[in-house]
């Protein structure tokens, strides 16, 4: 392969965010007319790299060249003008307008008559048709965007990229919301585009797809480049090994597990949302920490929020301590001794302008008001203060006073306040959704310690995590989900990165899932 076939070259790209080095001297070379897959775990830096390539982020260091020419994108529009387009995982079409207006938005063809720019509907229509014919897309340019299925929206988005004269099209998880037939259609268009010399950068977790469609595969890990290989030299196992390939270290408190009797039993639970999880069964024991692994879109959060009563369930049963329970809302769950630390600390965790004290006692005060009022009308200030202080001390929450607004605390301390909120309700079942995301190492360790203590007291803990070391370091068992299905349950002591990654990216039906109960 000669150099003239290189269309996009990114060299030694580095990018830091406050406290995190997201990219560390990463390079990427994409050739004309090929599909270049980009792979890595959640947080490996794929998206950051692509946002640099698409002008959404400005790299701190490194160089981007398009067809040998060094470029520095001002913004996305600039990148598109210079031949780089991106199809985002979540599309945001203007649903109320028609297809062609969506394609030409911002650069609508016009005729100038007098001082007025009149939209040239005819030219817009013809241009769109020509574009679609070329790509063999069968969509009426005048159809309203809102009427199109997700797959067709994506095709329109691709056509839009082509209309900008894209030399490189970045596709971020393009098949995440497509059916099998639609995936075929997408692949046909991709092949068509590559035949015309367009390069595709394809981000996906689905290894079978990657091996089927791509020519080259670049693998990233922890913000660094692992390497780049021709697809035909790779197997699924090789990819997984290179994606995870790290050693464990002592970032977790030591613990001895004493798994007791079954406590929470979930059987055949299916979400009311047909696109969410289906037929999930598992058992959680007293004194156990159950890890819940999977990739983005595996519906782990949805499963846990449904068990907690935040989302509707279509069918299935939940038993606690052997008794069937009906949980329709969080109040029910809390009364049954459950607690849920949600994934989005800002969106559904903290109440930013309220004080640390208010935030700590919130759940318990609502669930067990009598503890605070003694059956009378007024809350006991002393009880509130004592309760809050108890967790400020035991979780070593760093706050100037109890009355400080929680929004003034660091992320890790906010998270500990929220943990305190739930610990105060003395839960039997503690569900933690990505409890250590975006917080510093010290706070992480304290959260791990707390989980260990809970388990030692015979409580049940479920931890959703996308971080492999955390899953393997903390869990007694690891339950892995893939696209709304339970793809397997592994023993925490023996599970390997490769096993988890394999289960997370492939669902082969419950029968073959390798369930280790």
């Amino acid at each position, binding site marked *: 392969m000669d150099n003239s076939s290189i269309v996009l070259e990114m060299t030694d790209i580095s990018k830091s965010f406050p406290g995190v080095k997201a990219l560390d001297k990463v390079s990427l070379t994409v050739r004309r007319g090929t599909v270049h897959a980009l792979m890595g775990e959640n947080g490996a830096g794929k998206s950051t790299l692509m946002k640099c390539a698409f002008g959404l982020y400005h790299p701190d260091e490194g160089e981007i060249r398009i067809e040998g020419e060094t470029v520095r994108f001002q913004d996305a529009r600039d990148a598109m003008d210079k031949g780089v387009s991106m199809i985002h995982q979540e599309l945001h079409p203007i649903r109320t307008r028609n297809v062609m207006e969506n394609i030409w938005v911002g650069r609508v063809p016009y005729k100038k008559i007098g001082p007025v720019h009149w939209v040239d509907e005819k030219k817009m229509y013809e241009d769109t048709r020509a574009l679609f014919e070329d790509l063999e897309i069968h969509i009426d340019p005048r159809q309203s965007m809102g009427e199109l299925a997700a797959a067709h929206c994506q095709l329109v988005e691709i056509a839009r990229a082509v209309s900008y004269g894209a030399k490189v099209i970045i596709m971020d998880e393009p098949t995440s919301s497509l059916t099998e037939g639609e995936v075929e259609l997408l692949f046909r268009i991709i092949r068509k585009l590559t035949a015309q010399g367009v390069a595709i950068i394809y981000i996906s977790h689905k290894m079978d797809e990657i091996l089927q469609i791509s020519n080259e595969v670049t693998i990233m890990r922890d913000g660094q480049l692992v390497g780049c290989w021709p697809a035909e030299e790779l197997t699924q196992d090789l990819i997984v090994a290179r994606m995870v390939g790290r050693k464990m270290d002592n970032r977790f408190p030591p613990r001895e597990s004493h798994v007791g009797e079954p406590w929470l039993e979930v059987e055949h639970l299916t979400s009311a949302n047909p696109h969410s999880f289906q037929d999930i069964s598992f058992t959680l024991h007293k004194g156990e920490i159950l890890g819940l692994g999977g990739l983005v879109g595996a519906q782990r959060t949805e499963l846990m929020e449904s068990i907690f009563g935040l989302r509707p369930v279509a069918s299935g049963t939940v038993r606690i301590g052997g008794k069937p329970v009906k949980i329709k809302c*969080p109040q029910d769950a809390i009364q049954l001794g459950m607690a*849920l630390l949600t994934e989005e600390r800002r969106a559904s965790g903290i109440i930013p302008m309220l004080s640390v004290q208010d935030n700590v006692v*919130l759940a318990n005060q609502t669930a067990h*008001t009598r503890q605070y009022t003694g059956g009378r009308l007024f809350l006991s200030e002393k009880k509130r203060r004592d309760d809050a202080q108890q967790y400020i001390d035991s979780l070593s929450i760093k706050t*100037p006073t109890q009355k400080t607004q929680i929004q003034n605390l660091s992320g890790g301390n906010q998270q500990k306040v929220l943990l305190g909120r739930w610990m105060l309700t003395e839960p039997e079942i503690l569900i933690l959704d990505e409890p250590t995301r975006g917080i510093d190492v010290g706070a992480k360790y304290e959260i791990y310690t707390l989980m260990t203590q809970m388990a030692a007291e015979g409580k049940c803990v479920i931890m959703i995590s996308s971080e492999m070391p955390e899953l393997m370091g903390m869990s007694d068992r690891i339950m892995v989900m893939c696209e709304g299905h339970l793809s397997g349950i592994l023993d925490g002591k023996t599970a390997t990165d490769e096993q988890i990654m394999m289960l997370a990216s492939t669902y082969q039906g419950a029968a073959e899932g390798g369930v280790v109960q």
Partner: protein
Amino acid sequence: MTTKKKFNGKQFLVDYAIYLILLALVVIITVISPKFLSFSVFKDILMQSSVRIVVAMGCMFIIISGSADLSGGRMVGLSSLIAASLAQQATASLKFWPGLPELPAIVPVLVSMAVGVCFGVFNGLVVSKLKVPAFLATLGSQMMIFGFSSLYFNKAPNNSQPLGGLAKGFRDLGGGSIAGIPIIVIIALTVMLLVWVMLTKTCLGKEIFAVGGNLEAARVSGINVFKIQMITYSIAGACYGLAGALESARTSSATSAYGQGYELDAIASCIVGGCSVAGGVGTVGGVFAGVIIFNVISYGLTFIGISPYWQNVVKGLIIIGAVALDVRKYASKK
């Protein structure tokens, strides 16, 4: 745990802006007309503020819970009509309900509060069950309520005549005094005290703040958001009902035009008084100061003989300034 805070002049200005503005207003007016600083002026302003305080207290519940309510003003209008129609002397020249004996003063007050609660429940259901954005839901109910007021007002034999001939016992609620303190002021202060207790000392109050501060987080924490929304709208409705009754008692009359625009004044008072438009923040004292500021402006500028149109200019400026401060207070910390 406490750290000694250094005095921060800028922060002080931001935090106490409203009280400083109030002080500045009083000083300016007093310089122009020294008679302004007197007990009777103070009493007048409190009396004129009383109805507005009660409306603003109701409105404050809604704003703290992160919602909006535009129906307050028209609710005051409807309840003033209902209260006045039930509070007429048996011998009133144009009797709204012919043959109705003179009722104890408490009856019209309770009935108009009950009507307020009914519409509050209606608002709450529309917002929480039909998921209509609060702004639009209450805009709709505002129109409906005005429609009901007009229909009631035009009922024969009244035929859109301003209601009059109110019983003395009822009028005393607006004009009478106990130990030199106007009854209407006592009522308004009592409402404030109740609201303060409810918001700061009870579990319900804490939950209202939580829902307004972060609805999702409140829901996850086991707070019944539906219940909270229904309660806040009902309390607001009761406040509006009471305010309407007091307005008719104070003016010894009622028409369907009563209360027009009070909701916006109340919202403005809340915002100027430090409630966050985003919800979750607000104090009784701040809102009280907000109401007083607006009344000092209208009373004071009339007192020194300035055209009412200037009052609107000044009020508008203060609202904009308050919201600009509000944005600074909460945005800068993110």
